[in-house]
């Protein structure tokens, strides 16, 4: 019984990867953790699987492996692909030598994320093949396959997961293990240097591969089609939407449908045409943003028939949040399953996540609140991590949280545009990830802002992964960026230091230049 994420890891390991690169983020974290666990148990396998400093670097690392002919995987949560978008999009121009699989894990429903973006659109945008598994077995099989087709088409390939796949266990049967590729330096580097003259030729080559991708997709066995004689309603379902459809259809009270599961992209055009031949109503069920529901009109126009389309765009399925069997029953016109009467809605209260009892962040927030007490012209820009929970009572200590590292640039700009007390609060892992470059800018521009780095020596929210630079090394980095030594303060956030820490923060807030306060105490979860 493996998690979807673990199945992805084993698919990659058995495909002969030499390296896996990743930055922790729910729901993708367990992929890299599984590779790390395997690698630690099998040192002879020689698989590199350290955490990367951020997703852009992770992607570039995987691409570097690919250039020298080795197989590598890069994984992160969906928004990590935004960070990695620059090398990702350029790698469609360079192509791949050794197989390169990119595995973003989406989070429809935002269980642990700031948005619901659907990574299939990135594959569509980049014009590369994408596979969409629906259970742990397929997560294993399709990840393996991704490396083969990446080498066959000489292009990076995406495997798209979602939270409910990444975090659902199922039985997985392994197939044979493939040996790692041997290091091979390319004979010709033209394609790897994206000067416009080279890039134009490479882009032509990518465009000319599209027909091959579609051919591959048309014949892929996961794109399962079923034509029900006499059924006027056809269903196209993708990703977990297919599971919910099959579940709903198994207790449909006799209603039956023609259906096509789309599991590979670009879409299997032939099979779509075949399905459309027989139907007058089409229901499109997609986990994520409607992609096929947007593409489908081209194929409907070809039929010359009038076909009604029901899906998210038409309002027949909810546009936000995850799909489930209930919402799919509704779009299929099936009655809801009978439930035991729910009697308790007035008793049950929400229980949002909260900081652990004794968390060092809590002490820093109390000190910051004390330092800012009575000040009106103030904004506390914060960031992604456990400390984002400082938004809730009893702290109410932070105002904004946007994306990894955003706090630093936002606070810097607000300070130089007139905000008196402009503070950034972020963890040391987030600072490593995306805080260093805006910090350098703020220091060189002498912006009057204060950055509080919460150094708990781990990436806590995702379960305690190593941070690459902590403690004294982190101080050296900050000073190395050019910060004046007297405006780097290191405090110990414990309850009895409240007054002292608040005073230190206040002094730096009053200083009209860049300052950094490092609040250093180890996370309770990793003791």
């Amino acid at each position, binding site marked *: 019984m493996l998690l979807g994420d673990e199945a992805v890891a084993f698919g990659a390991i058995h495909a002969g990867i030499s390296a896996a690169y990743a930055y922790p983020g729910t729901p993708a974290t367990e992929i890299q953790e599984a590779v790390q666990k395997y690698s630690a148990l099998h040192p002879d396998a020689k698989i590199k699987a350290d955490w990367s400093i951020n997703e852009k670097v992770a992607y570039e690392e995987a691409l570097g492996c690919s250039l020298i002919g080795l197989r590598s995987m890069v994984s992160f949560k969906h928004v990590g692909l935004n960070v990695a978008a620059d090398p990702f999009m350029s790698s469609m121009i360079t192509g791949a030598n050794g197989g390169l699989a990119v595995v973003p894990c989406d989070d429809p429903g935002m269980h642990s994320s700031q948005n619901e973006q659907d990574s299939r659109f990135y594959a569509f945008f980049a014009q590369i093949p994408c596979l969409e598994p629906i259970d742990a077995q397929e997560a294993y099989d399709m990840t393996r396959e991704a490396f083969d087709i990446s080498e066959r088409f000489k292009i990076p390939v995406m495997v798209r997961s979602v939270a409910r796949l990444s975090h659902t*266990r199922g039985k997985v049967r392994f197939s044979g293990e493939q040996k790692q590729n041997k290091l091979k330096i390319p004979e010709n580097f033209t394609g790897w240097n994206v000067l416009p003259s080279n890039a134009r030729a490479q882009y032509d080559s990518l465009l000319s591969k599209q027909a091959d991708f579609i051919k591959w997709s048309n014949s892929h066995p996961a794109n399962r089609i079923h034509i029900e004689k006499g059924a006027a309603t056809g269903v196209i379902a993708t990703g977990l939407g297919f599971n919910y459809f099959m579940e709903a259809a198994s207790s449909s009270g006799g209603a039956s449908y023609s259906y096509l599961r789309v599991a590979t992209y670009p879409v299997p055009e032939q099979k779509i045409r075949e399905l459309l031949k027989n139907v007058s109503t089409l229901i499109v069920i997609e986990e994520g943003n409607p992609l096929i529901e947007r593409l489908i009109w081209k194929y409907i126009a070809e039929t010359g028939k009038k076909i009604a389309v029901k899906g998210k765009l038409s309002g027949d399925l909810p546009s936000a949040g995850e799909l*489930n*069997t209930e919402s799919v029953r509704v779009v299929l016109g099936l009655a809801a*399953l009978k439930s035991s009467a729910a009697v308790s809605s007035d008793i049950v209260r929400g*229980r949002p996540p909260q900081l652990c009892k004794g968390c060092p962040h809590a002490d820093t927030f109390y000190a910051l609140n004390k330092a800012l007490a009575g000040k009106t012209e103030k904004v506390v820009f914060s960031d992604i991590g456990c400390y984002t929970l400082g938004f809730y009572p009893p702290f109410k200590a932070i105002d904004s949280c946007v994306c990894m590292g955003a706090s630093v640039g936002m606070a810097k700009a607000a300070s130089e545009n007139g905000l008196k007390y402009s503070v950034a609060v972020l963890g040391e892992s987030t600072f490593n990830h995306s805080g260093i470059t805006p910090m350098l800018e703020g220091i060189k521009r002498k912006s009057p802002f204060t950055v509080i780095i919460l150094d708990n020596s781990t990436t806590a929210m995702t379960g305690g992964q190593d941070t690459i630079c902590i403690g004294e090394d982190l101080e050296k980095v900050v000073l190395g960026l050019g910060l004046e030594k007297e405006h780097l303060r290191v405090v110990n956030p414990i309850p009895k230091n409240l007054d002292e820490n608040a005073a230190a923060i206040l002094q730096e807030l009053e200083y009209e230049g860049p300052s950094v306060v490092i609040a250093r105490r180890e996370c309770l979860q990793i003791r």
Partner: protein
Amino acid sequence: MKLDIIFAGVGGQGIVSIASMLAFAASEKGFAVKQNEVHGMAQRGGSVACHVRISDKSVWAGIIPKGSADFILSIEPMEGLRYAGYLSPSGIIISGNQPVKNIDYPDENRVISAIKKHEGSVVIDTAALADKLKNTKAANIILLGALIKKIGLFGPEMESLIKKRFASKGESVVDINLKAFNAGMSNI
């Protein structure tokens, strides 16, 4: 045969661990099984649920549809009620009686009586049983024992799994968990 079970509680109570034990045992027996877990933000003291689906046919969705759950096992009473809408008409809640009050908590007696309004539901005195075992963290295994008794399957498999899973922590830990499991079996 089909079994849909929701394991409910608060982050850190050992929900995932007992859910995975049942899922593993059923899978070893040849059933189709899916187990959905919660990772990430909610684990920080938030409400956590884990879905286990077992069938002798195929299991499609990883999450249980509303109106389909046969059991809700809740280590924390209010968390069991949170998912009551998932119960099938014959489904029941098996709950412990130890509330986690890290929020503005509703009246405890109302919570317990609301659970009992679901016909056949049981509230087990996990507080007293865990106290007797001198192990405050045994509630999850006690409730697992109670659930297995109600299901009427996987009893021996679960005992050997407890022995295996806790072996690395020493004989006394194995022993206390076996006792907890049996306490659950015999107190429902």
